[in-house]
Every structure is written in structure tokens, then in C-alpha cells.
């Protein structure tokens, strides 16, 4: 299996809803319709034994974008699912930590650093952020300046 055959397999299952894709030698990037996101994660994690490498969060002008990186180690394919999260007063998306325990810390870090709420997350408490920082201070957002760091 390579990125193109894996994409074809996914297209066979999800059709046009798989959305825009981009391929490289060992990489596959997918921007699916949000409604199939959970099914897609399930297909990659459960059926294809994908390993959740991590989730990267991008702070773009209009939206936040979450990049779920799954490694299919046996096939040498790194699949990345791109999921936009609307930038409003309370940006939020669904958690995957109930299904994949490894996502718990990753989502906690993103919640603290970018202020994205993961609905139904099993442990919404601080992991990394300094006690001197407010709950509403999100250091990894683009509009956060290092000078905003309070404390000593």
C-alpha cells in the first residue's frame, strides 16, 4: 500500500466527502468534510492500525486548524487529517481521547496553549501552563506576545 492506493481505498468508502487530498512519496494529507471526521479516524486507527503520532495546531488568520498525524508504520505512510476549528469566543471541537487514550495529553496541551475546547474530554485540567498565567492567556496564539507573560 502507498499513499495513492490508500487514498483510493478511502475514496471508495467516503466518496466526495473525503475532500481535498495531497500526496507525496510517504505522506498523505486529507481535508475531509467535518461530518465524516470521526468515521475517518476510526477507519485509520482501528481498521488500519494507525498510530496517533500527535496533533499539531495552526493559528491561521481566519481559523484554527488541527492536524491529526497518524503513522501507518507497516506501510510507511504518514496520514495527516486537517480539521478547521472556527475562531469565535469559544473555539471547540470533539475529543478523540475517549477512543484513543494517547490523545489525552495532546488535547490538554492544545487546550492550554491555543484555547481550543475539546468537548467531552476526560480530564480538562492543566498540564503544562505556568500557575502565574491566567486561564484565558493562550501563549501559542499568534496574537500573544512574550511581553504578555506575567509573573516573575
Amino acid at each position, binding site marked *: 500500500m502507498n499513499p495513492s492506493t490508500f487514498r483510493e481505498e478511502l475514496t471508495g468508502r467516503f466518496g466526495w466527502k473525503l475532500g481535498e487530498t495531497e500526496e507525496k512519496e510517504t505522506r498523505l494529507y486529507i481535508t475531509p468534510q467535518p461530518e465524516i471526521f470521526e468515521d475517518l479516524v476510526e477507519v485509520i486507527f482501528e481498521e488500519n492500525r494507525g498510530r496517533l503520532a500527535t496533533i499539531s495546531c495552526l493559528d491561521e488568520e481566519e481559523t484554527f486548524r488541527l492536524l491529526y498525524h497518524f503513522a501507518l*508504520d507497516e506501510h510507511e505512510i504518514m496520514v495527516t487529517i486537517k480539521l478547521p476549528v472556527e475562531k469565535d469566543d469559544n473555539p471547540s471541537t470533539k475529543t478523540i481521547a475517549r477512543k484513543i487514550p494517547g490523545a489525552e495529553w495532546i488535547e490538554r496541551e492544545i487546550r492550554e496553549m491555543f484555547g481550543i475546547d475539546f468537548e467531552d474530554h476526560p480530564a480538562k485540567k492543566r498540564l503544562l501552563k505556568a500557575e502565574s498565567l491566567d486561564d484565558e492567556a493562550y501563549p*501559542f496564539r499568534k496574537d500573544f506576545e512574550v511581553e504578555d507573560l506575567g509573573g516573575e
Partner: protein
Amino acid sequence: MATTIPIGPYHPLQEEPEHYLLTVEGEEVLDVDVQIGYNHRGIEKLSEKKTYNQVPFLVERVCGICSHSHPYAYCLAVEDCGDLEVPEKAKYLRTLIGELERIHSHLLWAGLAGHFIGYDTVFMWAWKYREEVLDLLELLTGNRNAYAMMKPGGVQRDIPRKHLEEARPTLDMLKEKSEMLYNAVLDDPVMKARLEGIGILDEEDARAFGALGPTSRASGIPNDIRSDFPYGVYEDLDWKVITRDAGDVLARVEVRLLETLESIKMCEQIINRIPDGGSIDSEPKEIPPGDGIGSYEAPRGECFHYIKSDGTNRPVRHKIRAPTFMNFPTYRSTCIGETIADASIILASVDPCYCCTERAISLKEKDDVNLLELSQARTAEIKKELGLELSPLEEVLDE
């Protein structure tokens, strides 16, 4: 009745700040909670302000042990984004330093593991031989840690043949001593009694938590980036992925000690094959817009770097995920139900590295104290005592 025992944030047994809360009843551990973040330095954020060639210097300082792993993973990400070619010779040099780093890291851990269970002989042996590896790295790169070898598209410096040849006696010695250490540890009934059957992580849990490196390989998963997503020259070398099925702490010890032997074998092959001439740097000029993923097998497991480029000379976003970030949460599966005495070695058995895990502080000075000036003033004071000439700045500070 359940009691809570705090360990840390600063504890004599631990080499880094972390805070565990063990909920225990009698000897049995019922629950574990962890508070980290004491080492958070904001490196991901800082990285967005550096150019592509400056970032390796920064990420090299994510971790003092894996100071080759982070820049390597970062360079792989940039090379993935820009489809850059790396000269053959540079690949050999990169791989050599990477494997020497793995040897010293595994020996460091073996020593600490001995120390955690009160077996300080192992600690002294392992660290004695680790010193030799660090000296060798100093000979080859100029530094015992933070080797400053990496740059996108190649390496910074060549290593002369004469120095490579001088590495052979050290590798021979390490091979003999690592075998001795392996046999001594595995034959020792005390080590067996202490480590066998505790902290078991089964294959399903290892997969669910996304465990990496020796932690997952000791649970029967042959996950190794060097063979799954090959980089460097691993495809040309003769070596094997070490796995064990038991999933206990003893299996993790065994995997790391055997991997040390594999790494020594690889270093010897690299020294034999490394080309004498040729380019070491493809000198990339620009990085096009796009995404880049770098996946590197650090001593503790996959080190993952992601960069987003917009076509300028610095990354818009640089995400770093160290292996401990995935390995550490497995304590939920391994510690609960064990005894307090075993908890410390189980927690240590994933070889946790907190500065990597947290990586992200900006040292903020108090309003009225400038640490730099304070340090310069002290230098001026000492110079005056010794009767040396002061620089103009020091004269101002001295007043």
C-alpha cells in the same frame, strides 16, 4: 484508608522537576496523578522567530541528552517540505552521531535504573563507560553534548578520517563492556526479582497510548522509525529491531541493552563505509510553501517535528513532540495495582525526559534586577581584585 504521597517537584531520586501524587492504600498504588510544566520554555513559539538555519541551534537545546535527535528531526521536516536532497556523506555522518547518542543515552538510563532500585554498582559501571562515549563525541564533533552538526540539507562540518579511526578502540571497549553489563544484569537474581513481572504494559495498551521506542518494543510492537520510515543510511546497514513480548520492566532493560550492542555494530559499519571525499551540504536556498513532517528514532522513541512554511525564511509554525510525551501517560496502565517500592522504577522505566516533553519559558527578570548586569558586575569585581584592566562597560557597572 487511602493516603496521598507526593513525590517531587524536586526529589533526590529524580534528575528533573516533576510532581507525582500517588494515592495508596497500604503498600498498593491506587491512582497516580502527574503535574509537569516546570521546564516549559516556549521553544515552539521562539522557533517561529528564527530563520530555517537558526532553528537547529535552538532545538538542540530542547534536551541535553537528545541534542542530536531534535535538530535531526527538524532537518528531516524541512527536507520533507522542500524535497531537499542530502549528500551521501552527510547521511553517514548524521547517522554516526545519532547512534553514538543512542549508546550514551541507553547507558545513562541503565545507570539510573540501577540507582532507582538501589543497585549502585550498575550505576557506576554504566556511567563510567558512558563517559568514554561522551569523550569520543567530543573528539568527533568538538563537544560532549550539543554537537552542532545538523543543518537543513546536510551537516555543518566534516569529520577527518584520522578521528574516525580513533573511534575504533573505544567502540571495541564499549562492545565488551556492554556485553558484560547485559550478562551481569540478566543473570543477577536480585535484578530479576526486582524487575520481572512488574509494570506490565500489554500490546493493546501500548498501541492505544501510542507508546514509542523501547517502551513499545518491549511490549512486542516492532515500531522503529529507523526501519519503518528509513532516513540516513539505515537501509544499507546490517542491524535488527530488538523486540520482547513480556512488556515488563525487565523487558525494557533488555531491549535497551541489546540496542546498545546493535548501535555499536552500526557505528563500526559506518566507519568502514563512510566515503572519504564528497560534499557534505546541498546548500538549499529557499523553502517553498507547504507542510513538512520529520520523524526520527530518538533513544526514547519517535521524535516528531512538523513545520508549516509560507515561503518566507522562517517557519510559520513549528510543532515538536518528544517521545516521552506519548510514553509517559502509560503510567495509568502500568503503575496502578503495583507497590510503592516498585512505582519509582516503573515510572522511570519509560526513560522519561521532561525537558523534552515540556520544551516550551522565557526567563523573566524581576523589575529591579537585571541578571546579566549582575553577572557582569561580579566579573568586574573579580577583575579589579586581580588587578586586571576593566572594559568601559565594566567600569560603568563597577560604580
